[in-house]
């Protein structure tokens, strides 16, 4: 008996309409445990080498972990993966909500989509009944509109994922939307679903998930919820959620502002967590089984009408807010709603719009090409650009491929301020005085995404004179001066980056959210004990799970090497803005990272990883991790 898992893989070939349900492979469970482990393994093994990301042979893999859907805090993560249209390499993204757990209750740990439906379709899953149904009545409609239609037609207990118009038109940063405001935003997997003519998936599941020791899980689950309540962050972090970090990021000079030209703005108080609570919030909106709901559901009121929207989360505040110089919380929330409806990742969308505004300001995009006068911080301009992108009209068609490819077409010096790594736009932490954070972005398998590594705190602590792993909040309470931050030291960042790159994605393997650990400090031993009661197997978090997390790092690096013809070191460089332009204002004024420092960090990082000087895992490293890949 496979405890902790639903026990099945669902394979759907959209080209010929076949549906196969097969037992979950023991080999996957034994070697890769779940979630991100499954997606990495399956994508490498089953995606034909050299496949077109938007071609019918690309796969969309949906995977949950052994703890997903069980009685423990925040066990609601769903993982998606595909060869990314944004990077051409390994792409994945995950979301909270209730979709993945319902897939498990329907009996499926893994779903693999291949082929391309002839007509717009949606996938209907009601436990053992799986059908590919027509979706022409849904095509062209917004994400939440489609969710509402399907819930009305099928029943409110169905969980729905959808793509918006951006996914239909294969915008490289199209997201997957769910539960009226949750998204798997990154790496363009919404575009891959669109390329397969899949508008939505609807699932109802009401089966048991077998667990090894139900009584033990009941006891430990209750103890874990109780432990969460005892953490200071339970009441300190939860009210504002991720948005609570906005002012801190601004204070330490890490808030992306004006297309990452600078790292500080003078209106952070207007677009922070408090502004959300004061101006927008209706209710906390948590994911499945989560005791610390970061989702804030509210009502955005602008001249463009009143819109219900979940968020903005911190990344949206940073990328749509300060990075586009939009200083009104209702405006930021409205743009969040626009992105959700169109099916655009708010991180990349904010970065792409800011890039376009800078190109326009510098005359690299003319008014005629733009189609209207656009301005920083102007809601009309931002919404106009997003709609153009989602519809791939005019300049929107150029921008829809992301900043890297857009810069190739726009020319001039635009590549210098196209803020991305590997083709994926940078998220909400400006890093010119945070070398560890920068290295984390540079080397992440999916491109410039913070989900893999977050060491900004130790970078800043280091800069203001604390120990490398000091708690920044402690330093603040001790009176550290963030107004004039000294230059951060890059010498000791590699071990911290490696630790973070293994630790954060480890929770993605189990199928839980990392924030219980990261934000309120729930100890990893709870996960070890919950895993035992769920599966009947022992798991040493620091030894076994982090080893697997490291193994996945090598596997995905090899996927990128296989899929990107000249893949190597040059794909790990940050945009020139970060090593050519000193920060012009704010607490980090005058700072930049020297290119020699970037090279030095990469040399040290590759050596520590067991990769050659071009950043490719050595044969010895692959053997050490039992990876038979080339």
């Amino acid at each position, binding site marked *: 008996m496979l405890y902790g898992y639903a026990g099945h893989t669902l394979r759907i070939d959209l080209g010929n309409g076949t549906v196969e349900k097969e037992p979950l492979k023991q080999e996957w469970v034994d070697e890769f445990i779940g979630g991100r482990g499954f997606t990495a393994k399956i994508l490498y093994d089953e995606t034909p080498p050299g496949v077109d990301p938007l071609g019918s042979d690309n796969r969309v893999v949906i995977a949950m972990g052994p703890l997903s859907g069980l009685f423990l805090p925040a066990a609601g993560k769903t993982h998606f993966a595909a060869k990314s249209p944004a990077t051409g390499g390994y792409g994945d993204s995950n979301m909270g909500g209730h979709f993945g757990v319902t897939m498990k*209750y329907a009996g499926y740990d893994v779903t693999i989509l291949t082929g391309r439906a002839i007509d717009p379709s949606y996938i209907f899953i009601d436990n053992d009944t799986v059908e590919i149904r027509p979706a022409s009545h849904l095509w062209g409609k917004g994400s939440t509109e489609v969710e509402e239609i399907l819930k009305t037609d099928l029943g409110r207990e169905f969980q729905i994922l959808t793509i918006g118009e951006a996914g239909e038109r294969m915008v490289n940063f199209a997201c997957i939307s769910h539960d009226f405001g949750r998204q798997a935003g990154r790496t363009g997997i919404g575009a891959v679903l669109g390329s397969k003519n899949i508008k939505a998936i609807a699932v109802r599941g*009401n089966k*048991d998930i*077998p667990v090894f020791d*139900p009584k033990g899980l*009941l006891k430990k*689950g209750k103890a874990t919820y109780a432990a969460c309540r005892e953490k200071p962050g339970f009441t300190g972090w939860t009210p504002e959620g991720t948005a609570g970090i906005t002012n801190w990021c601004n204070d330490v000079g890490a808030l992306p502002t004006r297309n990452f030209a600078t790292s500080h703005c003078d209106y952070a108080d207007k677009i922070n967590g408090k502004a959300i609570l004061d101006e927008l919030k209706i209710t906390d909106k948590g994911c499945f089984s989560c005791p610390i*709901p970061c989702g804030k559901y509210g009502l955005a009121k602008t001249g463009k009408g009143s819109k*219900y929207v979940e968020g903005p989360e911190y990344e949206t505040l940073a990328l749509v807010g300060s990075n586009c110089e939009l200083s009104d919380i209702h405006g930021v929330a409205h743009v969040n709603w626009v992105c959700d409806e169109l099916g655009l990742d708010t991180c990349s969308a904010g970065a792409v719009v800011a890039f376009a505004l800078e190109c326009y300001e510098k005359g690299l995009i003319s008014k005629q090409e733009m189609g209207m006068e656009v301005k920083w911080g102007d809601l009309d301009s931002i919404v106009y650009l997003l709609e153009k992108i989602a519809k791939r009209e005019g300049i929107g068609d150029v921008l829809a491929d992301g900043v890297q490819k857009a810069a190739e077409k726009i020319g001039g010096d635009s590549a210098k301020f196209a803020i991305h790594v590997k083709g994926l736009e940078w998220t909400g932490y400006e890093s010119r005085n945070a070398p560890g954070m920068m290295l984390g972005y540079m080397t992440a398998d999916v491109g410039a995404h913070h989900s893999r590594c977050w060491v900004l705190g130790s970078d800043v602590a280091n800069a203001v004179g604390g120990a490398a792993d000091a708690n920044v909040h402690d330093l603040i309470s001790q009176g550290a001066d963030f107004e004039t931050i000294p230059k951060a030291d890059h010498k000791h960042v590699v071990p911290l980056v490696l630790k973070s790159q293994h630790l954060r994605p480890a929770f993605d393997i189990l199928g839980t959210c990392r924030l219980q650990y990261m934000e309120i400090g729930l100890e990893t031993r709870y996960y070890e004990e919950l895993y035992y009661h769920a599966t009947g197997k022992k798991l040493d978090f620091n030894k076994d799970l982090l080893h697997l997390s490291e193994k996945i790092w090598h596997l995905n690096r090899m996927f990128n090497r296989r899929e990107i013809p000249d893949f190597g070191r040059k794909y790990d460089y940050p945009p020139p803005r970060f090593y050519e332009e000193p920060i012009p204002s704010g607490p980090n004024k005058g700072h930049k990272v020297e290119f020699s420092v970037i090279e030095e960090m990469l040399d040290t990082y590759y050596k520590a990883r067991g990769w050659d000087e071009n950043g490719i895992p050595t044969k010895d490293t692959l053997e050490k991790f039992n990876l038979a890949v080339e």
Partner: protein
Amino acid sequence: MTLSFNYETCSGCRACELVCSLQNFKIINPSKAMLRVTAQFPDPGRYDVKICNQCGDCAEACPTGAIHRVKGTWRIDMKKCDGCLACVSACPEDVMMVNDDGMPYKCINCRQCADVCPRDALSFN
């Protein structure tokens, strides 16, 4: 003592459904729970939890007298229940559940949901 619900703090996590199914049936299956979280989105944006408030309408509707009160909690005597499900249609909160064998079951005030609820949206008054 009856269970009560405060929508203002509920974030829809469904920990109550999970603990209910695990406590009472020793299974992981929130669809079997004796209470039900419902989400009202996009408009007006709030959660409700359908709970048994021990109103006794089920007992009044029961033709066999199978539902009786024990220390403030209405319970079903399965020896007397003939599975007619009159109680199900009588329940104003739609929380008289039906098991796979076609027989009804209901909340027994075990209080686990209120104990676990991380938002204190469920409580006993």
